[in-house]
């Protein structure tokens, strides 16, 4: 009896505290710009997610420490753990949107898809950097969604173009077999329409090897099929625990690694290292800098990591995924800065942020100013094109680290763009009545 009373009392107190806590969240400091970071450091995708989360967090934290924020206003950062789970992602979104969130980076195609229709309603832009819905690149239909620097369809076209180069021209792809191993979720299925189109156009055979989320760590059956089918090239759209497993399996069946190309999300250092010596020659696309030889990264090390303000292991600075996270934060920061310039306000809103992102122009001079010369290809967003189809490069694993293996390769914009527009129109039609764009164009 006594213990039950205590239990009941304890529960009542806990619930009371929780309620009062929820009530106070509305009150927020008015002199900072609030940036929620949807990250995942737990679950089956944590191996990739931790580096991204560290990179995103550290760059923005560094701006706070070194420059006192952006335009003299500090950034208020808050991480919310999604575990790559769409339900938890939406929960994080609902919990943080009321605090004046400027932009969301879902880092999951599943979460992105859920946030896309909400973005225009809540007036908070979604920045899905190099992932999410490809069709969102069409700014006239998706004014609130940004996927600079590239869509998955751009990426898929670059892979085919690169393979064509290796074979001495796209015409030589005729009769070749290209295997596509992908995470069987929204993410991995996204590039299939484009690959199918290209396969028709260039006459290569596309063989699909889906890997379910549950089978990520056991791909032996897929790779058995690969061994049987003997594709000339393998292309991978993997994430989290799928990447190291696939590379290990490829090594095991002695697939020629120089003919195995991953998307930019299959480009982690840990992913490739898992294959041991056999992984030498594995290739992946990338659009963010290789290595830690950039002044801005030195500043991160000095102001954030060495100061103990981050959970980053100093050795992981400069890793592909860490740098990807940094680039994501550079785009956020430049978006805020541009928005401040456009509006003349210091503390901006989600609507201002949308304008800032739409007017984003990260040219070579600005990259140099940021201490990130050569870290990324200069990128520009226009009102029509929220992705920009920027060139990407291929990097190669030399057994211990990544090194750049090609120049910047332009995506096949002529093929991708009409498809993007058709897909955007289809999305708007399926989700009718999809709101027509009313937001003015800042540039």
């Amino acid at each position: 009896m006594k213990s039950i009373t205590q239990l009941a009392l304890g529960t009542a107190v806990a619930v009371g505290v929780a309620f009062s806590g929820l009530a106070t969240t509305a009150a927020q400091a008015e002199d900072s710009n609030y940036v929620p970071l949807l990250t995942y450091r737990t679950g089956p995708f944590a191996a990739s997610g931790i580096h991204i989360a560290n990179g995103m967090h550290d760059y923005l934290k560094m701006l706070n420490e070194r420059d006192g924020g952006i335009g003299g206003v500090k950034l208020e950062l808050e991480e919310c753990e999604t575990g790559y789970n769409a339900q938890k992602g939406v929960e994080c979104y609902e919990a943080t949107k009321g605090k004046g969130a400027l932009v969301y980076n879902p880092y999951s195609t599943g979460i992105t898809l859920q946030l896309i229709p909400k973005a225009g309603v809540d007036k908070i832009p979604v920045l899905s950097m190099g992932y999410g819905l490809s069709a969102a690149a069409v700014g006239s239909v998706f004014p609130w969604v940004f996927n600079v620097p590239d869509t998955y369809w751009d990426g898929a076209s670059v892979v085919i173009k690169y393979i064509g180069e290796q074979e001495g021209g796209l015409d030589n792809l005729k009769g070749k077999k290209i295997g596509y191993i992908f995470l069987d979720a929204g993410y991995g299925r996204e590039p299939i329409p484009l690959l199918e189109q290209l396969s028709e156009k260039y006459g290569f055979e596309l063989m699909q090897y889906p890997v379910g989320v549950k089978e990520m760590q056991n791909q032996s059956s897929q790779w058995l099929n690969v061994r049987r089918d003997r594709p000339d090239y393998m292309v991978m759209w993997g994430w989290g625990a799928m990447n190291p497993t696939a590379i290990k399996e490829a090594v095991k069946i002695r697939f020629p690694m120089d003919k195995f190309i991953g998307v930019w999300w299959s480009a982690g250092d840990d992913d490739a290292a898992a294959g041991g010596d056999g992984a030498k020659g594995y290739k992946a696309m990338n659009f963010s800098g290789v290595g830690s030889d950039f002044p801005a990264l030195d500043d991160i090390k000095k102001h954030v990591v060495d100061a103990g303000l981050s959970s980053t292991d100093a050795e992981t600075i400069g890793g592909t995924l860490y740098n990807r996270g940094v680039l994501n934060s550079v785009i956020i920061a430049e978006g805020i800065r541009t928005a401040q310039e456009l509006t003349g306000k210091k503390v901006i809103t989600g609507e201002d942020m949308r304008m800032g992102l739409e007017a984003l122009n990260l040219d070579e001079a600005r990259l140099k100013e940021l201490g990130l010369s050569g870290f990324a290809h200069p990128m520009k967003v226009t009102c029509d094109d929220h992705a920009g189809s920027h060139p990407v490069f291929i990097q190669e694993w030399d057994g211990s680290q990544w090194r750049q293996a090609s120049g910047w390769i332009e995506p096949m914009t002529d093929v991708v763009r009409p498809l993007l527009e058709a897909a955007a129109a289809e999305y708007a039609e399926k989700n009718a009545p999809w709101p027509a764009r009313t937001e003015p164009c800042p540039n």
Partner: protein
Amino acid sequence: MFYREAGQFKTSYKADQALMPILQDRVGLLVILAIAFVVIPVFANDFFLTSIMIPFLVFSLAAIGLNVLTGFCGQLSLGTGAFMGVGAYAAYKLTTIFPDANVIVMVLLSGVFSAAIGAIFGLPSLRIKGLYLAVTTLAAQFFLEWCFIRIGWLYNYNASGAIEIPHREAFGLVVSGAEATPIVRYFIVLCITAGIAFLMANVLRGRIGRSWMMIRDMDIAAELMGIRPLQTKLLAFAVSSYICGVAGAMMVFFWLNAAEPSSYSIALSFQILFMVILGGLGSLGGAFMGAAFIWILPVFLKFIPGTIGIDVAAETVEHVTFMIVGALIIFFLIVEPHGFARLWQIAKQKLRVWPFPY
């Protein structure tokens, strides 16, 4: 003292057979309904409605559905997630085929498809019982999940493979899609859940419910007394799947707005099963309590440190939440294996005799 029914005389059969014969229960229920229909809508913010109340009600309904099958009819099922998925995909297809029809009707109708599928997968229950039946329902789970991934027609061949809920209006209000306000969604979910719970409360204490419980307690004896096992078991599967299907459709229409096949995975089946076991097998109230424990507690734990100003890393909170919830599940199952419903009964009994316990 608080719960004494002394002095409450029943003068008619009708009063004696009422759903809640005791005054305190009726008052209690009215208070809960008043809180749900008036207090929460007036005072709650969007986060509370969309991330706590709506999912809580959806999961409560799903737990009621599973409780009908497992708690009342004694048929263990691991296919709940898939049956919810059938409801979701059916409602999605219905609303895209008939865009002008009332989406709430479509949601309620989607349960019919789920019921049909559930009855088909319930057929083996005639020959096999217990864990073996659980394995066949597991097969249903995997088969249906495979369908959600592989059959493009189900998701209208979206490139992403996900179903995205379109904008729909009913009664002059936007009820689904991104523009639907949390309060409207909340009221729809609340009305459907309360309505089905009320209906089930009556079904379960009538002829049908009693025949399910007879099958649960001893199927041979039930058969000898004239209960036909085929019809009874299949009816339990159908009713359970109908409720789960409606819950699944509500989950995507009024809560998530978009769903991938992985939203209806085996993990969801287990989540619902834990709600039922923790809440108490064979209790409607238990379904709500179990859903509250499994869904609301982790959300609270996750957002408490931030809201009271303790700065803890997000992933630490996640890990700690896992540990606390896990430990509490073990604790409650040791203290009371019959779940929260039984705890509540004990508490009621204590309140009844207070302050003179014996």
